[in-house]
């Protein structure tokens, strides 16, 4: 994405009007995107929220005096107060502490699951789009079959095969994101394959691997980054659902979905138990979505919200 067309800057001023900012400044597309990004308040807010959440999760032991798993019968079901800002649960554990530690699990699920999904999906999509023919047919049919499983059912099926635990959950959620990546990259690659610079590379005798890796993939990267960001939000939601169902993390792990499952039976006694972990999930997902939407608008202003 280093399209510095600075030569065009020497055009007479009358022709200069139609050329975009990139041409005049000799700026890379990434830098333009970053600059557009910094002008969007919602995106910047999203980044700040995410950084705060990540800091809270990583620095949890320094931020809170409590242990996320230690039981204390005398402190059970305390409503929010100064010493326990978000209250305590039915085992006397501090809810804020558990939410901070839970952030580690949720962010990890989002990042690892999407890395798995993106790696497999991008590879499949790029091969299908670049090679075409029966390989494309075969990969596309596999993707169709994956898309035939409604919603999170594909992830549930994978958990069923691998067995319910946290690392299998990440794999399962990751597999669930494969079809999206594959479809996106296949379409993008199909289009990129026809560009002149690819023909030029082929004429120069580049190998398929080099054309794909050096010339095509970097040019389809922007939509993949946008899609990956939005997928992290989806993966965190799916992960929380599976954990809620008991198909992932096991007690006493501090995990938001699991905390909600435990809170479900406590709603008559302690309103704060189901409220705050859910807000944590929502806040995280809103922030990631805001960043994703911002990236999309920054990379491709034509897709911007009207």
């Amino acid at each position, binding site marked *: 994405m280093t399209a510095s067309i600075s030569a065009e800057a020497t055009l007479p001023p009358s022709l200069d009007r139609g050329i975009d900012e990139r041409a005049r400044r000799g700026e890379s597309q990434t830098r333009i995107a970053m600059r557009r990004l910094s002008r969007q308040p919602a995106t910047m807010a999203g980044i700040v929220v995410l950084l705060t959440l990540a800091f809270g999760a990583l620095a949890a032991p320094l931020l809170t005096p409590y242990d996320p798993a230690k039981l204390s019968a005398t402190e059970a079901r305390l409503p929010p107060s100064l010493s326990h800002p978000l209250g305590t649960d039915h085992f006397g554990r501090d809810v804020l502490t558990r939410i901070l530690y839970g952030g580690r699990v949720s962010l990890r699920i989002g990042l690892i699951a999407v890395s798995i999904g993106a790696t497999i999906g991008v590879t499949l999509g790029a091969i299908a789009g670049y090679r075409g023919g029966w390989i494309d047919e075969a990969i596309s049919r596999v993707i169709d079959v994956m898309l035939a499983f409604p919603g*999170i059912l594909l992830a549930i099926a994978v*958990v069923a095969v691998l067995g319910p635990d946290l690392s299998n959950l990440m794999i399962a959620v990751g597999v669930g994101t494969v079809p999206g990546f594959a479809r996106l990259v296949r379409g993008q690659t199909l289009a990129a394959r026809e560009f002149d610079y690819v023909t030029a590379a082929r004429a120069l005798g580049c190998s398929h691997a080099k054309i794909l890796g050096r010339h095509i993939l970097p040019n389809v990267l922007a939509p993949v980054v946008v899609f990956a960001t939005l997928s992290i939000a989806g993966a965190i939601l799916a992960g929380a659902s599976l954990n809620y169902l008991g198909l992932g993390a096991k007690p006493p792990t501090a995990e938001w979905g699991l905390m909600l499952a435990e809170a479900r039976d406590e709603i008559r006694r302690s309103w704060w138990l189901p409220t705050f972990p859910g807000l944590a999930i929502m806040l995280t997902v809103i922030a990631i979505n805001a960043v994703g939407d911002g990236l999309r608008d920054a990379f491709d202003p034509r897709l911007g919200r009207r």
Partner: protein
Amino acid sequence: MGAYLRRRLLTTIPVLLGVSLVVFLMLHLLPGDPVLMMLTEHRGGGAPTISGSITQEMYDNMRHQLGLDRPLPVQFASFLGGVLRGDLGTSFRGGEPVRELIVRNLPYTIQLALASFGVAMLAGFLLGVIAGVRRGTWIDSLTMTIAAAGVSMPSFWLGIMLLLVFSVHLNIVPAVARAADWRSLILPAVALGFSASAIIARLVRSSLVEAMQQDYVQTARAKGLREGAVVVRHALKNALIPVVTVGGLQFGNLLGGTVVIETVFARPGIGHITVNGILERDFPVVQGVVLVSALTYVLANLLVDLTYTWIDPRIRFGGGT
């Protein structure tokens, strides 16, 4: 229309076959041995091995009985044959035919999926049209903020919060009601349908805003039509097409989402038996449920495509893609 329909139906067949193959392989990719799992039924956890009261002969007999000693392709053919006859095997736990288990539970799930689909379409459509017509005002911002929260909210959490507010504090809707009682459907349908309605609202809004900028809307205005008629008769009609597609895709998410919502509201249904099936490693049940859900979804999508054809005559007559 005939050619399009035929091709659409033809591409559905390999997908259905693929889904059956995946579901069939589920049982064979398992780390555990299904035969031992059946033999050790109700004998506690732990990895089952041939030991104690289970002899090699019992094991071989069971294996033969289940047909697991035959080559894989033969097994797949007989699995497919069974599926076509409606035979999905029997549960490892309790020995009930999986088909009966599903037939007993599926209506509740379909009911919930349809109800939440109704909520999603209705709320999404209303919010989207309001925001689209009042574009750029505070109403638009408010609606779109609600939508942003809606897509970021786990449906099961919304369900718990609805229970907290409407059952525990306001006491309007019973927290636990008989599944046959229609009131027991309200909260689950809203919980499940809300995030889909947010997606639909965004889409209706942007689709409507785009349609409002078209020439035919200008023309309609120029000939003196009331704004209401312009929106409903000209803009909205054309804004509808992408909404149907996305609405159809959302139906699948809702169908999958019932799994979690059923657990929140302790409703009977497919989700309930799926989760139990996984936790108890009762694979014929999981297999059956996954297969039936995927088939339902594929057929629902086919239906959506046909609706699409009906709404947009360009597809019908163009014989396009």
